[in-house]
């Protein structure tokens, strides 16, 4: 691997292999959720691009952060860039892509539509914070690092997102069960 030529580099490569094996599905889901338009092909493209980028930058990985955190930072940035470019393209072409939850998904389509509409009412920053912390199980500190924001700012986004979602979807949830939040999807 060019610059990576020692035993340490072999180890990096094997760690990257393990990352791909274990995180592919989660990475695809994180990308899909951050893009927020139900475009599965775009989410897969973003995931692939992020993995290729990470592979190329593997020699620069210094191990200061976990490889997983390092990779998800690349993935989140890739998804944000994709979303911005998509917005520019839509602005330029005067078309808007319809947000869909994906027809192949199981479950109640009406419920899904309501959830999508509620998430669509959040700002991009609020949705990203909500997705990473509450749905993907990153800690506030990790999510702040992934998004390049301060933990305090992230908490503010989370608070506002929670309030909006309670307002939009509160009638769907039973308020008797007020367990703490650790219900994020497990990795992989």
């Amino acid at each position, binding site marked *: *691997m*060019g*610059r*990576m030529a020692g035993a340490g580099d072999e180890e990096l490569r094997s760690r990257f292999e393990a990352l*791909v094996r274990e995180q*592919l*599905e989660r990475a*695809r*889901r994180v990308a*899909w*959720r951050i893009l927020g338009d139900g475009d*599965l092909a775009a*989410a*897969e493209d973003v*995931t*692939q691009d992020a*993995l*290729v980028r990470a*592979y*190329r930058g593997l020699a620069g990985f210094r191990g200061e952060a976990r490889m997983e955190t390092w990779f998800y930072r690349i993935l989140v940035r890739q998804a944000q860039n994709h979303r911005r470019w998509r917005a520019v393209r839509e602005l330029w072409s005067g078309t808007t892509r319809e947000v869909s*939850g*994906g027809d*192949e*998904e199981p*479950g*109640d389509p009406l*419920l*899904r539509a309501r*959830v*999508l509409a*509620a*998430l669509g009412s959040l700002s991009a920053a609020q949705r990203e914070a909500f997705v990473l*912390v*509450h*749905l993907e199980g990153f*800690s*506030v500190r990790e999510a702040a690092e992934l998004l390049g924001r301060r933990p305090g700012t992230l*908490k503010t986004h*989370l*608070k506002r*997102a*929670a*309030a909006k*979602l*309670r307002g939009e*979807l*509160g009638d*769907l*949830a*039973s*308020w008797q*069960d*007020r*367990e*703490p*939040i*650790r*219900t*994020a*999807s497990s990795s992989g």
Partner: protein
Amino acid sequence: MAGQGTDPDGQLVRLIDESYAPPPLTASDRARLRSRLDARLERARPGRRWWPVAAAALPAVLLALFVLRPAPEPLRPVEVPTQLAVDWASDLLYPPEIVAAEDEEGRADALPEEYRAIEVLLAGY
């Protein structure tokens, strides 16, 4: 964990988690993604990048351009008109007197006053 007020109801989060997710990755999806990724990683290998090839080829390209550059036109002797050369030599040997034209009032109109004063001083007229 997030601070006070940042945690929505657990059931609500569960509901969103279930409703806001892509279809699960099937074995064939995984194989397809993996093979596409492997092909891209193979292309992304540092040894396969274009810039080392370009860097290696650059000196050869520059050398080829140097060798194949168009030949410059040969130097041709410049013909100086004989009269021009004679005039120049003549001017050198016999500097022409600069005579200021005088206007109706008898003042030199080509030189400023200071120069006129110096001229008078030196030439005595």
